[in-house]
Protein backbone atom coordinates (compact mmCIF):
# COMPACT_ATOMS: atom_id res chain seq x y z
CA UNK A 1 0.00 0.00 0.00
CA UNK A 2 1.37 3.39 -0.92
CA UNK A 3 0.77 6.42 1.22
CA UNK A 4 -0.44 9.70 -0.22
CA UNK A 5 2.46 12.12 -0.67
CA UNK A 6 2.93 14.70 2.08
CA UNK A 7 2.38 18.32 1.24
CA UNK A 8 4.18 21.31 2.68
CA UNK A 9 2.50 24.38 4.15
CA UNK A 10 3.21 26.13 0.84
CA UNK A 11 1.55 23.52 -1.34
CA UNK A 12 -1.42 25.63 -2.47
CA UNK A 13 0.93 28.48 -3.29
CA UNK A 14 3.14 26.28 -5.46
CA UNK A 15 0.11 25.10 -7.41
CA UNK A 16 -1.17 28.65 -7.82
CA UNK A 17 2.27 29.54 -9.24
CA UNK A 18 1.92 26.72 -11.79
CA UNK A 19 4.79 24.63 -10.43
CA UNK A 20 5.55 21.24 -11.92
CA UNK A 21 5.37 19.01 -8.86
CA UNK A 22 7.34 15.82 -8.24
CA UNK A 23 7.45 13.12 -5.62
CA UNK A 24 10.56 13.49 -3.51
CA UNK A 25 11.10 11.17 -0.54
CA UNK A 26 7.36 10.88 -0.02
CA UNK A 27 6.74 14.61 -0.36
CA UNK A 28 5.02 16.36 -3.23
CA UNK A 29 7.56 19.09 -3.99
CA UNK A 30 8.00 21.77 -6.67
CA UNK A 31 10.42 20.56 -9.36
CA UNK A 32 10.34 23.85 -11.28
CA UNK A 33 8.02 26.78 -11.83
CA UNK A 34 9.12 27.62 -15.37
CA UNK A 35 12.50 26.91 -16.90
CA UNK A 36 14.93 25.23 -14.49
CA UNK A 37 17.80 26.88 -16.33
CA UNK A 38 16.35 30.34 -15.75
CA UNK A 39 15.88 29.50 -12.06
CA UNK A 40 19.50 28.32 -11.84
CA UNK A 41 20.79 31.51 -13.45
CA UNK A 42 18.60 33.62 -11.12
CA UNK A 43 20.29 32.08 -8.07
CA UNK A 44 23.78 32.59 -9.54
CA UNK A 45 23.17 36.20 -10.54
CA UNK A 46 20.24 37.54 -8.46
CA UNK A 47 18.20 35.51 -5.98
CA UNK A 48 15.98 32.46 -5.76
CA UNK A 49 13.39 31.34 -3.20
CA UNK A 50 13.05 27.66 -2.28
CA UNK A 51 10.57 25.66 -0.20
CA UNK A 52 12.64 23.06 1.67
CA UNK A 53 10.01 22.10 4.20
CA UNK A 54 10.60 18.43 3.47
CA UNK A 55 13.90 18.51 5.37
CA UNK A 56 13.76 16.76 8.76
CA UNK A 57 14.33 18.73 11.96
CA UNK A 58 15.21 16.93 15.18
CA UNK A 59 15.84 18.83 18.42
CA UNK A 60 18.01 17.65 21.31
CA UNK A 61 17.71 19.40 24.66
CA UNK A 62 19.23 18.86 28.07
CA UNK A 63 22.56 19.10 29.89
CA UNK A 64 24.16 16.27 27.88
CA UNK A 65 22.70 17.06 24.46
CA UNK A 66 26.15 17.94 23.13
CA UNK A 67 27.72 14.81 24.57
CA UNK A 68 24.95 12.69 23.09
CA UNK A 69 25.62 14.17 19.65
CA UNK A 70 29.37 13.60 20.07
CA UNK A 71 28.57 9.92 20.59
CA UNK A 72 25.95 9.67 17.87
CA UNK A 73 27.69 11.66 15.11
CA UNK A 74 31.22 11.80 13.72
CA UNK A 75 31.72 15.49 14.59
CA UNK A 76 32.66 17.30 17.78
CA UNK A 77 29.36 19.01 18.42
CA UNK A 78 29.81 19.78 22.12
CA UNK A 79 32.56 22.17 21.02
CA UNK A 80 30.18 24.08 18.73
CA UNK A 81 29.55 27.65 19.89
CA UNK A 82 25.99 28.78 20.50
CA UNK A 83 24.69 30.38 17.31
CA UNK A 84 26.94 28.39 15.01
CA UNK A 85 26.17 25.54 12.63
CA UNK A 86 28.26 22.61 11.44
CA UNK A 87 28.18 20.16 8.56
CA UNK A 88 28.56 16.63 9.90
CA UNK A 89 27.51 13.03 9.33
CA UNK A 90 25.88 10.15 11.12
CA UNK A 91 27.51 6.77 10.41
CA UNK A 92 26.66 3.20 11.25
CA UNK A 93 29.00 0.94 13.23
CA UNK A 94 30.70 -0.14 9.98
CA UNK A 95 31.50 3.47 9.12
CA UNK A 96 28.86 3.70 6.38
CA UNK A 97 27.13 7.04 6.03
CA UNK A 98 23.50 7.03 7.24
CA UNK A 99 23.07 10.70 6.38
CA UNK A 100 24.84 14.03 6.13
CA UNK A 101 23.50 16.65 8.49
CA UNK A 102 23.67 20.26 9.52
CA UNK A 103 23.61 20.77 13.28
CA UNK A 104 22.77 24.16 14.81
CA UNK A 105 23.53 24.98 18.43
CA UNK A 106 20.60 27.15 19.44
CA UNK A 107 21.46 27.37 23.17
CA UNK A 108 23.84 25.78 25.65
CA UNK A 109 21.48 22.87 26.05
CA UNK A 110 19.65 22.92 22.73
CA UNK A 111 20.72 21.62 19.32
CA UNK A 112 18.76 21.29 16.11
CA UNK A 113 19.76 18.54 13.68
CA UNK A 114 18.61 18.90 10.07
CA UNK A 115 18.45 15.64 8.13
CA UNK A 116 17.67 14.89 4.52
CA UNK A 117 13.98 14.20 3.92
CA UNK A 118 14.67 10.66 2.72
CA UNK A 119 16.64 9.84 5.88
CA UNK A 120 14.77 11.83 8.53
CA UNK A 121 13.17 8.78 10.14
CA UNK A 122 16.43 6.80 10.08
CA UNK A 123 18.26 9.69 11.73
CA UNK A 124 15.49 10.24 14.29
CA UNK A 125 15.51 6.55 15.22
CA UNK A 126 19.31 6.40 15.45
CA UNK A 127 19.55 9.58 17.53
CA UNK A 128 16.78 8.38 19.87
CA UNK A 129 18.59 5.07 20.39
CA UNK A 130 22.09 6.53 20.69
CA UNK A 131 21.02 9.32 23.09
CA UNK A 132 19.34 6.89 25.48
CA UNK A 133 22.22 6.83 27.96
CA UNK A 134 22.57 10.61 28.13
CA UNK A 135 20.70 13.35 29.95
CA UNK A 136 18.98 14.64 26.85
CA UNK A 137 15.58 14.53 25.20
CA UNK A 138 15.27 13.87 21.47
CA UNK A 139 12.27 15.57 19.87
CA UNK A 140 10.86 14.97 16.41
CA UNK A 141 10.31 18.55 15.15
CA UNK A 142 9.39 17.76 11.56
CA UNK A 143 5.81 18.98 11.98
CA UNK A 144 6.90 22.15 13.74
CA UNK A 145 8.98 23.75 11.01
CA UNK A 146 8.58 24.96 7.50
CA UNK A 147 11.89 25.83 5.82
CA UNK A 148 12.35 28.55 3.23
CA UNK A 149 15.71 29.30 1.61
CA UNK A 150 16.64 32.52 -0.12
CA UNK A 151 19.84 32.08 -2.08
CA UNK A 152 21.92 34.24 -4.38
CA UNK A 153 24.00 37.43 -4.33
CA UNK A 154 20.94 39.67 -3.84
CA UNK A 155 19.61 37.66 -0.90
CA UNK A 156 21.30 39.67 1.92
CA UNK A 157 19.84 42.91 0.60
CA UNK A 158 16.38 41.44 0.18
CA UNK A 159 16.39 39.92 3.65
CA UNK A 160 17.71 43.12 5.24
CA UNK A 161 14.63 44.97 4.04
CA UNK A 162 12.47 42.59 6.10
CA UNK A 163 14.42 42.14 9.33
CA UNK A 164 16.24 44.01 12.08
CA UNK A 165 18.46 41.00 12.71
CA UNK A 166 22.20 41.67 12.40
CA UNK A 167 22.78 39.95 9.08
CA UNK A 168 26.21 41.56 8.60
CA UNK A 169 27.29 39.96 11.88
CA UNK A 170 25.88 36.59 10.83
CA UNK A 171 28.71 34.47 9.47
CA UNK A 172 28.50 31.60 6.99
CA UNK A 173 27.34 28.52 8.92
CA UNK A 174 25.78 30.48 11.74
CA UNK A 175 22.19 30.94 12.85
CA UNK A 176 20.30 33.31 15.11
CA UNK A 177 16.70 33.75 16.17
CA UNK A 178 14.99 36.83 14.81
CA UNK A 179 11.93 38.16 13.09
CA UNK A 180 11.49 38.35 9.31
CA UNK A 181 8.46 40.27 8.00
CA UNK A 182 6.93 39.96 11.46
CA UNK A 183 7.41 36.17 11.48
CA UNK A 184 9.56 34.58 14.22
CA UNK A 185 12.34 32.66 12.47
CA UNK A 186 15.63 30.93 13.00
CA UNK A 187 17.77 32.79 10.46
CA UNK A 188 20.70 30.68 9.27
CA UNK A 189 23.38 31.66 6.79
CA UNK A 190 23.48 28.28 5.13
CA UNK A 191 22.42 26.77 1.84
CA UNK A 192 23.15 24.22 -0.80
CA UNK A 193 23.70 26.32 -3.90
CA UNK A 194 27.27 27.62 -3.70
CA UNK A 195 25.93 31.15 -3.25
CA UNK A 196 25.52 33.42 -0.27
CA UNK A 197 22.08 32.91 1.20
CA UNK A 198 19.87 32.17 4.13
CA UNK A 199 17.65 29.38 5.38
CA UNK A 200 14.65 30.45 7.44
CA UNK A 201 13.06 27.96 9.83
CA UNK A 202 9.55 29.10 10.74
CA UNK A 203 6.24 27.75 12.02
CA UNK A 204 4.28 26.16 9.14
CA UNK A 205 1.40 28.56 9.81
CA UNK A 206 3.73 31.49 9.03
CA UNK A 207 5.28 30.02 5.89
CA UNK A 208 2.93 31.51 3.33
CA UNK A 209 3.11 35.00 4.83
CA UNK A 210 6.92 34.84 4.81
CA UNK A 211 7.03 33.51 1.23
CA UNK A 212 4.81 36.38 0.04
CA UNK A 213 6.87 38.98 1.91
CA UNK A 214 10.13 37.66 0.42
CA UNK A 215 8.58 37.52 -3.05
CA UNK A 216 7.45 41.15 -2.83
CA UNK A 217 10.69 42.39 -1.28
CA UNK A 218 12.72 40.55 -3.91
CA UNK A 219 10.71 41.46 -6.98
CA UNK A 220 12.80 44.48 -7.91
CA UNK A 221 16.03 42.51 -7.42
CA UNK A 222 14.83 39.75 -9.74
CA UNK A 223 14.07 37.06 -7.14
CA UNK A 224 12.19 34.08 -8.56
CA UNK A 225 10.70 30.94 -6.99
CA UNK A 226 12.97 27.94 -7.57
CA UNK A 227 12.35 24.20 -7.56
CA UNK A 228 14.35 21.12 -6.71
CA UNK A 229 15.59 20.70 -10.28
CA UNK A 230 17.79 23.79 -10.22
CA UNK A 231 18.75 23.08 -6.61
CA UNK A 232 20.35 19.89 -7.92
CA UNK A 233 22.31 21.59 -10.71
CA UNK A 234 23.38 24.38 -8.34
CA UNK A 235 24.75 21.95 -5.75
CA UNK A 236 26.37 19.85 -8.46
CA UNK A 237 28.28 22.86 -9.82
CA UNK A 238 29.30 23.68 -6.25
CA UNK A 239 30.63 20.12 -5.83
CA UNK A 240 28.37 19.40 -2.88
CA UNK A 241 27.52 15.75 -2.24
CA UNK A 242 23.95 14.46 -2.27
CA UNK A 243 22.81 11.59 -0.13
CA UNK A 244 21.91 8.55 -2.22
CA UNK A 245 24.35 9.66 -4.93
CA UNK A 246 27.82 10.55 -3.62
CA UNK A 247 27.01 9.41 -0.08
CA UNK A 248 25.50 6.01 0.82
CA UNK A 249 25.71 3.42 3.58
CA UNK A 250 28.31 1.66 1.39
CA UNK A 251 30.52 4.77 1.59
CA UNK A 252 32.54 6.12 4.50
CA UNK A 253 33.28 9.86 4.84
CA UNK A 254 36.87 9.06 3.79
CA UNK A 255 35.74 7.40 0.56
CA UNK A 256 33.84 10.58 -0.26
CA UNK A 257 36.86 12.80 0.39
CA UNK A 258 35.11 14.24 3.43
CA UNK A 259 37.23 12.60 6.12
CA UNK A 260 37.77 16.00 7.71
CA UNK A 261 34.27 15.83 9.25
CA UNK A 262 35.36 12.86 11.40
CA UNK A 263 36.81 14.12 14.68
CA UNK A 264 38.83 11.31 16.26
CA UNK A 265 40.26 13.60 18.95
CA UNK A 266 36.93 14.35 20.63
CA UNK A 267 36.21 13.14 24.13
CA UNK A 268 34.62 9.73 24.53
CA UNK A 269 33.72 7.01 22.08
CA UNK A 270 31.42 7.42 19.10
CA UNK A 271 29.49 5.10 16.82
CA UNK A 272 31.70 3.92 13.97
CA UNK A 273 35.04 4.93 15.50
CA UNK A 274 36.79 1.62 14.94
CA UNK A 275 35.65 1.19 11.34
CA UNK A 276 36.36 4.83 10.53
CA UNK A 277 39.88 4.58 11.96
CA UNK A 278 40.53 1.73 9.53
CA UNK A 279 38.91 3.71 6.70
CA UNK A 280 41.16 6.68 7.47
CA UNK A 281 44.25 4.47 7.32
CA UNK A 282 43.15 2.96 4.02
CA UNK A 283 42.52 6.40 2.57
CA UNK A 284 45.92 7.68 3.73
CA UNK A 285 47.83 4.65 2.41
CA UNK A 286 46.17 4.25 -0.95
CA UNK A 287 42.72 5.50 -1.69
CA UNK A 288 41.03 2.93 -3.92
CA UNK A 289 38.75 5.47 -5.56
CA UNK A 290 38.42 9.21 -5.52
CA UNK A 291 35.53 11.56 -6.03
CA UNK A 292 36.33 13.80 -8.99
CA UNK A 293 34.67 16.21 -11.35
CA UNK A 294 34.19 15.46 -15.05
CA UNK A 295 33.53 18.06 -17.73
CA UNK A 296 32.21 16.97 -21.12
CA UNK A 297 33.79 17.89 -24.39
CA UNK A 298 30.56 16.98 -26.17
CA UNK A 299 26.94 17.67 -25.32
CA UNK A 300 25.58 14.36 -24.09
CA UNK A 301 24.74 14.29 -20.42
CA UNK A 302 26.16 11.71 -18.00
CA UNK A 303 23.71 10.34 -15.46
CA UNK A 304 24.09 8.58 -12.12
CA UNK A 305 25.21 4.97 -12.61
CA UNK A 306 26.91 5.49 -15.98
CA UNK A 307 30.34 3.89 -16.24
CA UNK A 308 33.56 5.88 -16.45
CA UNK A 309 35.97 4.21 -18.87
CA UNK A 310 39.60 4.54 -19.92
CA UNK A 311 41.51 2.37 -22.41
CA UNK A 312 38.39 0.25 -22.81
CA UNK A 313 38.31 -0.58 -19.08
CA UNK A 314 35.73 0.50 -16.51
CA UNK A 315 37.54 2.81 -14.07
CA UNK A 316 34.66 4.37 -12.21
CA UNK A 317 31.03 5.34 -11.97
CA UNK A 318 29.11 8.58 -12.29
CA UNK A 319 27.20 9.50 -9.12
CA UNK A 320 25.55 12.71 -10.37
CA UNK A 321 25.44 14.38 -13.75
CA UNK A 322 23.64 17.25 -15.42
CA UNK A 323 24.06 19.96 -18.00
CA UNK A 324 25.77 22.84 -16.20
CA UNK A 325 24.07 26.15 -16.98
CA UNK A 326 27.10 28.09 -15.71
CA UNK A 327 29.73 26.15 -17.67
CA UNK A 328 27.48 25.56 -20.67
CA UNK A 329 28.62 21.92 -20.77
CA UNK A 330 27.51 18.65 -19.19
CA UNK A 331 29.28 17.92 -15.90
CA UNK A 332 29.41 14.97 -13.53
CA UNK A 333 30.68 13.90 -10.16
CA UNK A 334 32.14 10.38 -10.26
CA UNK A 335 34.04 7.87 -8.21
CA UNK A 336 37.14 7.06 -10.26
CA UNK A 337 40.08 4.67 -9.63
CA UNK A 338 42.96 6.62 -8.13
CA UNK A 339 45.12 5.94 -11.22
CA UNK A 340 42.72 8.02 -13.34
CA UNK A 341 41.65 10.58 -10.74
CA UNK A 342 44.34 13.23 -11.17
CA UNK A 343 43.03 16.44 -12.76
CA UNK A 344 44.05 16.48 -16.40
CA UNK A 345 44.29 12.69 -16.76
CA UNK A 346 44.01 11.86 -20.45
CA UNK A 347 41.74 9.35 -22.12
CA UNK A 348 38.85 9.34 -19.65
CA UNK A 349 35.36 8.90 -21.08
CA UNK A 350 31.83 8.23 -19.91
CA UNK A 351 29.85 5.41 -21.48
CA UNK A 352 26.64 7.14 -22.54
CA UNK A 353 24.32 4.45 -23.87
CA UNK A 354 27.15 2.65 -25.61
CA UNK A 355 29.11 5.65 -26.87
CA UNK A 356 32.33 6.61 -25.08
CA UNK A 357 32.09 10.39 -24.77
CA UNK A 358 35.39 12.09 -23.83
CA UNK A 359 35.50 13.86 -20.46
CA UNK A 360 38.07 16.05 -18.75
CA UNK A 361 38.97 15.11 -15.15
CA UNK A 362 38.94 18.17 -12.86
CA UNK A 363 39.09 18.91 -9.15
CA UNK A 364 35.81 19.78 -7.44
CA UNK A 365 34.02 22.16 -7.28
CA UNK A 366 33.16 23.22 -10.80
CA UNK A 367 32.01 26.60 -9.59
CA UNK A 368 33.13 28.85 -6.76
CA UNK A 369 31.52 32.20 -6.17
CA UNK A 370 33.55 35.40 -6.11
CA UNK A 371 33.68 36.82 -2.59
Amino acid sequence: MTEAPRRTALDALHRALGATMTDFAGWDMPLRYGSERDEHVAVRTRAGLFDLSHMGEITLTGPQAGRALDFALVGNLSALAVGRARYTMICDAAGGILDDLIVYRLADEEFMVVANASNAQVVLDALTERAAGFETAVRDDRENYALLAIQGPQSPGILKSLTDADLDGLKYYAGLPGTVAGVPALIARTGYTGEDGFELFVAPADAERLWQALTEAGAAAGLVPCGLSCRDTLRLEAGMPLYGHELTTATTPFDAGLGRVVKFDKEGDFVGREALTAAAERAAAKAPRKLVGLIAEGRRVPRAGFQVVADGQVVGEVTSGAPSPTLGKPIAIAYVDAAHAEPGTKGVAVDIRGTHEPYEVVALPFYKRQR
Partner: protein
Amino acid sequence: MSNPQQLRYSKEHEWLSAVEDGVATVGITEFAANALGDVVFAQLPAVGDTVTAGESCGELESTKSVSDLYSPVSGEVVAANQDVVDDPALVNSAPFEGGWLFKVKITDEPADLMSADEYTAFAG
Protein backbone atom coordinates in the same frame (compact mmCIF):
# COMPACT_ATOMS: atom_id res chain seq x y z
CA MET B 1 -1.72 25.18 -24.12
CA SER B 2 -3.36 24.76 -27.51
CA ASN B 3 -2.52 22.17 -30.11
CA PRO B 4 -2.67 23.52 -33.68
CA GLN B 5 -5.71 22.23 -35.57
CA GLN B 6 -3.91 21.59 -38.87
CA LEU B 7 -1.52 19.04 -37.32
CA ARG B 8 -2.01 15.37 -36.48
CA TYR B 9 -0.65 13.76 -33.33
CA SER B 10 0.76 10.46 -32.08
CA LYS B 11 0.37 8.83 -28.68
CA GLU B 12 4.12 9.40 -28.23
CA HIS B 13 3.44 13.16 -28.34
CA GLU B 14 4.85 13.89 -31.78
CA TRP B 15 3.06 16.10 -34.24
CA LEU B 16 2.94 15.59 -38.00
CA SER B 17 2.27 18.41 -40.44
CA ALA B 18 0.03 18.23 -43.48
CA VAL B 19 1.63 16.12 -46.22
CA GLU B 20 2.88 17.93 -49.31
CA ASP B 21 4.34 15.92 -52.22
CA GLY B 22 4.57 12.97 -49.83
CA VAL B 23 6.68 14.89 -47.29
CA ALA B 24 5.61 15.93 -43.77
CA THR B 25 7.37 17.71 -40.91
CA VAL B 26 7.70 16.09 -37.46
CA GLY B 27 8.15 17.69 -34.04
CA ILE B 28 7.16 17.10 -30.44
CA THR B 29 4.20 18.79 -28.83
CA GLU B 30 4.27 21.62 -26.33
CA PHE B 31 2.87 19.16 -23.78
CA ALA B 32 5.86 16.87 -24.34
CA ALA B 33 8.34 19.75 -24.32
CA ASN B 34 6.96 20.99 -20.99
CA ALA B 35 7.12 17.50 -19.53
CA LEU B 36 10.76 17.11 -20.56
CA GLY B 37 11.92 20.42 -19.11
CA ASP B 38 14.76 22.36 -20.72
CA VAL B 39 16.02 20.34 -23.71
CA VAL B 40 19.81 20.50 -23.82
CA PHE B 41 20.75 17.96 -26.48
CA ALA B 42 18.98 16.65 -29.55
CA GLN B 43 20.14 13.69 -31.58
CA LEU B 44 18.04 13.72 -34.74
CA PRO B 45 17.89 11.15 -37.52
CA ALA B 46 20.18 11.95 -40.46
CA VAL B 47 19.06 12.73 -43.99
CA GLY B 48 18.72 9.42 -45.83
CA ASP B 49 17.86 7.43 -42.66
CA THR B 50 14.83 5.16 -42.81
CA VAL B 51 12.47 5.65 -39.88
CA THR B 52 9.67 3.34 -38.77
CA ALA B 53 6.41 4.46 -37.19
CA GLY B 54 6.51 3.99 -33.42
CA GLU B 55 10.23 3.19 -33.32
CA SER B 56 13.03 5.23 -31.82
CA CYS B 57 14.95 7.40 -34.29
CA GLY B 58 16.86 9.73 -32.00
CA GLU B 59 16.97 11.19 -28.50
CA LEU B 60 16.08 14.34 -26.67
CA GLU B 61 18.05 15.04 -23.53
CA SER B 62 16.78 17.44 -20.89
CA THR B 63 18.24 18.63 -17.62
CA LYS B 64 16.81 15.68 -15.73
CA SER B 65 16.37 12.88 -18.22
CA VAL B 66 16.82 11.50 -21.70
CA SER B 67 13.89 10.46 -23.87
CA ASP B 68 13.72 8.50 -27.08
CA LEU B 69 12.44 10.36 -30.09
CA TYR B 70 9.90 8.27 -31.99
CA SER B 71 8.76 8.73 -35.54
CA PRO B 72 4.98 8.99 -35.99
CA VAL B 73 5.25 7.60 -39.53
CA SER B 74 7.50 5.36 -41.62
CA GLY B 75 9.63 6.73 -44.44
CA GLU B 76 12.89 8.33 -45.43
CA VAL B 77 14.30 11.37 -43.65
CA VAL B 78 14.79 14.21 -46.13
CA ALA B 79 15.76 17.00 -43.68
CA ALA B 80 16.86 17.42 -40.04
CA ASN B 81 16.59 20.73 -38.23
CA GLN B 82 20.17 21.91 -37.69
CA ASP B 83 18.86 24.92 -35.74
CA VAL B 84 17.61 22.54 -33.05
CA VAL B 85 20.92 20.65 -32.98
CA ASP B 86 22.69 23.99 -32.47
CA ASP B 87 20.12 25.37 -30.00
CA PRO B 88 18.03 22.57 -28.45
CA ALA B 89 16.09 25.15 -26.36
CA LEU B 90 14.08 25.84 -29.55
CA VAL B 91 12.15 22.66 -28.76
CA ASN B 92 10.87 24.36 -25.60
CA SER B 93 10.40 27.87 -26.93
CA ALA B 94 8.77 27.03 -30.27
CA PRO B 95 7.78 23.34 -30.35
CA PHE B 96 5.30 23.78 -33.23
CA GLU B 97 7.43 26.17 -35.29
CA GLY B 98 11.20 26.73 -35.23
CA GLY B 99 11.59 23.70 -32.97
CA TRP B 100 10.51 21.17 -35.63
CA LEU B 101 12.79 18.13 -35.71
CA PHE B 102 12.85 16.40 -39.10
CA LYS B 103 11.03 16.03 -42.42
CA VAL B 104 10.12 12.61 -43.71
CA LYS B 105 9.05 11.26 -47.12
CA ILE B 106 6.24 8.99 -45.99
CA THR B 107 5.99 5.36 -47.10
CA ASP B 108 3.48 4.29 -44.47
CA GLU B 109 1.51 5.90 -41.71
CA PRO B 110 -0.43 4.29 -38.88
CA ALA B 111 -4.20 4.65 -38.81
CA ASP B 112 -4.31 5.89 -35.22
CA LEU B 113 -2.86 9.39 -35.56
CA MET B 114 -5.09 11.81 -33.67
CA SER B 115 -6.71 15.11 -34.53
CA ALA B 116 -5.89 18.17 -32.39
CA ASP B 117 -9.09 17.73 -30.37
CA GLU B 118 -8.46 14.02 -29.85
CA TYR B 119 -4.87 14.71 -28.78
CA THR B 120 -5.91 17.47 -26.40
CA ALA B 121 -8.28 15.01 -24.73
CA PHE B 122 -5.56 12.32 -24.74
CA ALA B 123 -2.83 14.49 -23.23
CA GLY B 124 -5.22 15.94 -20.67
